[in-house]
């Protein structure tokens, strides 16, 4: 099998983007107003993710209660048909548990949780299709759903992945690219350069980390703009209706 030209000498990637271009990013909020307190739908390229948030609510078990702050729990379910080859995944698969923990940690620090003591916030994420940037897509969906639920946050957490091919940093990888290079996923807080999330599972040379991170942060800001646009237009739409 000849290798793919992941980044051609002419500067184009397998799907025709340049190194610093995002994939198509589309999002909606308040998609399931009747079944949840906040909901969202995110498409990042061909990755499609739904997120629903319940809460803040009374915890079902006493063990889930914290007198000082809200207890946040994430549950992830990945559809069997989300990849080209159908594959059953159990909820307790190690990889999924890891992703779940990463998202929980991210939002525990981004939600102003001391405002909601003795409560429980449940974030349900449903992955419908995956084509790279899974963690980024899930975290973006969660951000939007939390905003829709009206839960107080410090700022947007906007996520995007970036990888290193040869010596070139590439933004927002799809599956083909993810399979062939080392990459990281970051979550940027608002317009700052602070990170709420940084996940790097492969090796990346230290001297290349900086340009990759720089590119990812710029990409994160762009994602934030797109999400902000949707939130504002939705807000406008709602206020007109009332």
């Amino acid at each position, binding site marked *: 099998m*000849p290798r793919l030209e992941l980044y051609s000498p*002419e500067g184009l990637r397998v799907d025709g983007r340049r190194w610093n271009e*995002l994939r*198509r990013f589309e999002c909606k909020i308040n998609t399931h107003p009747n079944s949840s307190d906040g909901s969202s739908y995110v498409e990042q390229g061909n990755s499609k993710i739904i997120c629903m948030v319940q809460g803040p609510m009374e915890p079902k078990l006493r063990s889930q209660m914290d007198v000082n702050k809200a207890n946040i729990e994430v549950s992830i379910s990945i559809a069997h048909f989300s990849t080209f080859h159908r594959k059953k995944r159990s909820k307790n698969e190690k990889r999924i548990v890891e992703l779940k923990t990463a998202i929980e940690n991210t939002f525990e620090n981004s939600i102003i949780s001391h405002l909601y003591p003795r409560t429980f916030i449940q974030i349900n994420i449903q992955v419908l299709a995956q084509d790279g940037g899974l963690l980024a897509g899930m975290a973006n969906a969660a951000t939007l759903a939390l905003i829709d639920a009206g839960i107080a946050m410090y700022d947007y957490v906007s996520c995007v992945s970036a990888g290193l091919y040869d*010596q070139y940093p590439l933004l927002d990888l*799809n599956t083909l690219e993810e399979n062939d290079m080392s990459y990281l996923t970051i979550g940027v807080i608002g317009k700052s350069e602070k990170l709420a999330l940084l996940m790097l599972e492969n090796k990346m*040379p230290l001297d290349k980390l900086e340009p990759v991170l720089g590119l990812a942060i710029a990409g994160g800001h762009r994602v934030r703009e797109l999400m902000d646009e949707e939130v504002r237009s939705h807000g406008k739409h709602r206020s007109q209706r009332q």
Partner: protein
Amino acid sequence: MPSDKKRLSSGLTVTSKVFVMSRNGSATKVVREHYLRDDIVCYSTACNKCAELIKENPDGQIPNIQLSDVPAKLQNERHYIVVDTNIVLSAIDLLENTECFYDVIIPQTVLDEVKNKSFPIYQRLRSLVKAEEKRFVVFHNEFHEGTYVTRKHGESMNDRNDRAIRKVVSWYDNHINHDNSIEKINLVFVCNDKDCRKKAEAEGIYTKSLVDYVEMLPKADYLRELVSNDNQTFTEFQNEAKYQEYYSEARIMAGVKNKSLFKGILNISRYNFLQGTVQVPDFKKPLLVVGTKNLNRAFNSDLVVVELLPQDKWRSPSSTIVEEGSIDDYDNPDDDDDGATASNGIIPDKERILLAQEATKAITLASSGNTDVEHKLQPTAKVVGVIRRSWRYYVGQIAPTSVSADDNGNASRACFVVLMDTVLPKIRIRTRRAKELLGKRIVISVDSWEATSKYPSGHFVRSLGDIESTEAETEALLLEHDVEYRPFATNVLNCLPKEGDKWKVPENLDNGDEQLKKRKDLRGELVCSIDPPNCVDIDDALHAKPLPNGNFQVGVHIADVTHFVKANTALDDEGASRGTSVYLVDRRIDMLPLLLGTNLCSLNPYIDRYAFSVIWEVDKDANIVSVEFTKSIIRSREAFSYEAAQKRIDDKSQNDELTKSMRILLNLSKKLKQKRLNNGALNLASPEVKVHMDSETSDPGEVEIKQLLETNSLVEEFMLFANISVARKIYDSYPQTAMLRRHAPPPASNFEQLNDMLSVRKNGMHISLENSKALADSLDNCIDPKDEYFNTLVRIMSTRCMMAAEYFPSGFFGYSDFKHYGLAVDIYTHFTSPIRRYCDIVVHRQLAGAIGYEDLAQSHRDKNKMEFIVKNINKRHRNAQFAGRASIEYYVGQVMKSNESIQEGYVIKCFNNGIVVLVPKFGIEGLIRLEDLGDTDSAIYDEDKFELHFNDLHKNKRTIGVFDKVKVEIKSIKDEISGKRKAQLILQ
């Protein structure tokens, strides 16, 4: 299939590519995003529109606008060329030719199609684009809004791609010639597909077939010959043979999966070109493929798929020598199953699987050493498909008998080309200049081998010159061994320091250069170099001095090539692809440009040079106390030849510091060597000879066996010492990707035959294989008191049973497999010759990274990239060795012309119709056929005793066995068919 398009805010349009992929027999629908854009530039300097569209790469570089604004004229009009896939695939040689094809546009569609069809051609095309010399550009039409086409309903993929390519032509035409370029530039679409041309013409595109296009060029006559015969078949030769058609791809894939067919590389026997073997992991023994019918058009080293033959066809490998003798039939004399093979096609898979199980059983039985017959029996197979052809350029000559003498016409005629490589068949080519090319070495390329044609067909590429002219022969052997010998391209030379040979080590070491500060100034040490006489690329130098505590300081200084050859430059790429310098008798093919190799890097005496130093503190018994690696600046005091150094050391009257330090070195080196031998390092031998050239006429003069002096081993020991220390260091820092070299212990089966021979012919002598120490000791014991040379002979033969040493990234094996068997060390690498080996360059970079001198390039930290590098340098290293040997062989042949004599030789192999004799004095080995020995009919071959009984030409009974010392007359003869000069041996 197309889907709806969406425009994004960033100016891109997204659509999706949907296709069905089959994997493991099931179909999967794949959906991928596909972005279309309007900012892809046309790469033409004549264009005024695209300049503002250019976007830079992450490293800030912008693409080079290459297409000339005054391209070549075609019938008085300037033109750009757009090529179709079939042109690239069939005429890549022509595209690379410097006489034609400038300013070529390659649509991405073509590039992708080429990549899927043939990866090597794709790589050649890519390097053409990269070299920038012929102004080839890739236009990414699939990502351009204006040129992307969606597949229509019912349209085949091929038709869609053709349409996409035509769209590129009209887009370019429109783009350049509509209120843009000042001068009109025509676009010529070169395509060999008639239908596509017709459609193109209907769309108003100027199009030509390759032949028609070439005819229009100024040098048409010369170029015309180079066009491949792809579309004009040798109709007159159809149905002269009927090979079995290859199985369909689906059948092969299914067969390989359910283990009824087997995949492997075909390896044709050196001694019998009708017998090949395929090594398959499922069987311990290789599968035999015998006869042209079963070989079924496969070439040596093709990746083939084979099918087992029924058990009654299994046989032992033939012990007969068959060389491609005459022009006429050479079908296997013992190929008697013509009818039977034809009916094999109907045996169901189930039965074949059974057969495969049988074969495994038979082999296990045989290897456990049951009966004699089974011991020899090998499963046979036939080729049913070729997955990857090994076709490349071949060198050969036109067979004189295939050209009729009375033919004076100018029409092109078919004739045969006999290749230099004897394991390959003749190639049929068509040329007008057959007569002119007789007696010349020519390069041809193979195009196809139809099932109906007895011989493969190819086309002429170029002529190298007269047979036996030194130039033609040297070039031929370089081509045959795939050695890149063309001069360095300009973009490579541009990477050299701008000062050229004026480059100097800066005088002021404190000039703010951070890296320079990290260098150690060792100019005070008494460094000298010891090399072969007339050595111009000195890559190592040494120093030693006693320390106050009674220990010694020893330094090995290696040319700092990586200071000049930085990673990810054109120069580095070129070095990586050449892999090694190649040393021939009369010339040297450098890995790096001359300026570096013989000047800036070379550690010449009396001048400051950058070096990479390894400095040890060792005690009196040469045990390491400490070791330090550092980049340094040195000044060599003297460049000795081995002989001069030896003389200086031996000369008692010389007592200056430099001589003293050399004596220290010699002393330590002896201790190191003894230690190594105690550990079981092997002392193997090869019949190496050296050809002396007459310095004025550069005719080869005489042949001599290489002499070894103590100083040779002095240098060698310290180089080994340095290599081992460096290997440990880089493995420590880069456990996954350190570039190392290993030498696997030989498998017992390699020594089976030699041990059999020894025990039968030499009263139970035996080479034991438990470990290298045992092997070394048993080799020492193989002594024939009557014959001094016998021990060397056994060493030479053992060398051939050894595995080849290889480079590898450390992550590929466990630590216990790093062992270098021959040197008896647990870890080893090559560090000491960066001027002539690419491995050493990688090791230098890794060591520099390990000591924190500079960051290690990404490509040497990535396992996949390292694998790629390693594969290439292993191959190059092997080829360079073969080329070197072939060069010596050629010159020895030339020397023999005036030196025919009677010499002593040793029989090293016995067949039932001939013997192989090695003549140590000239390092040549030759086959003597039974016909030349005596009466063929009465000869008896005793397989168990490795003896051949025969009546010689004088009707005397004679018996000759392996290891016998014989007298042979050496003559130099020219083989009329292959045009090779060989030393022929005649038994006295």
